[in-house]
């Protein structure tokens, strides 16, 4: 390697690695985000993917054998978690906060004179309410009509099938690439601040009193940050695979072609470095550059499905997501982890990111003022 380029890279690396705030921003922030947001999202995912048990309180006011059988069937159903209530009043039971449903089997249920009463907390999720009502209804029908297993009868009439899940990632499939990309785009802050600091304190001017080309200085700036981007991604993956697996019940499945992470990461790092160079060229002061970089990165994250998974965004935002390079980067990783897509399926996203990087570098090249 060119000796001058080697020294330019070494200088940049030394300054960067000695800056504790930058290290925290680039490495600790995404690790913390991955850790806490994966845990936070796990509850949501448990509901969506595996189904939460229906928690309810059963109050049997009848001494008939059918009422006892219904109470037993409800309590023993694998989809139900029956809770013992200390109170007898329905409102007091719900106020306790442990359940959102009280099922009362009244005297006269066995003769058909009194229906089973479902008493819901008004804030209950609509889907959860429908599921609970459907399950209790089928159990009541089983008991009332002396059907041994209504589920088995229904299976001869209705077969349930589902499209393979290719849209909704698990918590780690979502957060690890998402916050790795987020942190990689944050490289624009130290890159632009470093450039403007050198420009303002005169070191860049001094540098150009030596026989050094602007191309070499540019490469000396880009290469270290590009390498750090790659290290950031590798570190986040290691955290996801080896650390987070101890805290999250859903395993981090990397798909059938995990090697595809290599070309995707190399292209994503080019896009993130390009963004950083663009901010450095556009910013006039360090404060302006850091604000531009932070606001730009957060907005791209909001639109790009980093903070809220793209799969559960409203339709309008889903369509708007394509304006964010983070969307293309994140979807490229989800192609690998979630869809096990062939490389030709990922390539269009990489082309979009390469074009984004090219545009950033081009505009930066036109706008940059070295002195």
């Amino acid at each position: 390697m060119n000796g001058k380029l080697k020294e330019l890279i070494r200088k940049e690396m030394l300054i960067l690695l000695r800056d504790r705030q930058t290290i925290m921003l680039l490495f600790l922030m995404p690790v913390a985000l991955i850790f806490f947001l994966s845990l936070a999202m796990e509850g949501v995912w448990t509901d969506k993917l595996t189904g939460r048990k229906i928690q309810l309180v059963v109050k049997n006011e009848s001494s008939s054998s059918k009422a006892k059988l219904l109470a037993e069937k409800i309590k023993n159903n694998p989809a139900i978690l029956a809770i013992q209530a200390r109170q007898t009043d329905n409102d007091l039971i719900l106020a306790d906060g442990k359940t959102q449903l009280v099922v009362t089997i009244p005297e006269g249920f066995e003769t058909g004179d009194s229906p089973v009463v479902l008493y819901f907390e008004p804030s209950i999720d609509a889907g959860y309410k429908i599921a609970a009502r459907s399950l209790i209804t089928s159990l009541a029908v089983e008991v009332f009509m002396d059907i041994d297993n209504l589920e088995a009868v229904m299976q001869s009439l209705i077969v349930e099938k589902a499209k393979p899940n290719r849209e909704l990632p698990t918590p780690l499939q979502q957060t690890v690439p998402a916050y790795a990309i987020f942190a990689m785009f944050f490289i624009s802050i130290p890159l632009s601040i470093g450039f403007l600091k050198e420009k303002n304190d005169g070191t860049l001017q001094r540098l150009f009193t030596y026989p050094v080309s602007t191309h070499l200085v540019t490469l000396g700036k880009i290469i270290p940050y590009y390498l750090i981007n790659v290290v950031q991604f590798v570190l986040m993956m290691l955290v996801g695979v080896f650390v987070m697996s101890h805290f999250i019940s859903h395993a981090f499945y990397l798909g059938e072609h995990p090697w595809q992470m290599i070309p995707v990461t190399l292209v994503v790092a080019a896009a993130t470095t390009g963004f950083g160079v663009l901010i450095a060229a556009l910013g006039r002061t360090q404060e302006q550059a850091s604000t531009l970089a932070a606001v730009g990165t957060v907005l791209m994250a909001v639109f790009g499905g980093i903070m809220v998974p793209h799969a559960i965004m409203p339709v309008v935002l889903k369509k708007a997501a394509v304006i964010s390079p983070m969307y293309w980067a994140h979807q490229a990783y989800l192609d690998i982890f979630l869809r096990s897509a062939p490389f030709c399926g990922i390539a269009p996203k990489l082309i979009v990111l390469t074009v984004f990087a090219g545009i950033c570098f081009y505009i930066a090249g036109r706008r940059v003022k070295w002195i």
Partner: protein
Amino acid sequence: MNALDIYGVTYSYGNGTENALEDFFLSVANGRMHALLGPNGAGKSTLMRIATGRLRDYSGSISVYGRMMPDREALLSIGYVPQPISLYTGLTATENLRFFGAMAGMPGDRIEARSREVLEQTGLAGHARELVSTYSGGMQRRLNLAVALLHSPTLLLLDEPTVGIDPQSRHHIYETLTELNAAGMTVLLSTHIMEEAQRLCQAVTMADRGRVIYEGPMSEIDNLEKFFLEKTGRGLRDD
């Protein structure tokens, strides 16, 4: 042969204002210490930028030891001490010297040997491995000079090298410059401190509003500050 010849240089920053330099001429004889004086806006820093190859779109010509600028060899014969302390404060003195030495194209062993010499010369040998951010203003100014001396230039351009430092560091810089000049180095010193210029320099060029208003030997001037004010006037230069 002169170390530095500037013929009829005119330069404008292109923002519609008057020329920063207008038909500027300056010759610095080889082995001399030459003062460049002028009030704010005289064009001293612009001249330094042009002489060190950082501003290119000027008319007129500049030659360093007979080589027309911009020229790679001519650039390497110049040591430049900028007015701001232009050092990487996140690096140590040794690391700064290694970096700028590499930019000058010096081999590693030569950088190491010269680093020891210039750190000794500027009184920083005992602080070579400390981060520059921990240095006092005077130490940073001396390292600013050390970096310029590292690649053994024969022409030293100094832009207000003693601004804002204590008398001890200033005195050390004066001694270093005197020794270097005695050893044959040519020096162009841009300064606002008249006593500094009169004490160190054998020749003087005075500029005002981008033009040369006086050039001559220092020996012909009795009181430099009085002479300077007579030439440039006593009015404030806030514009």
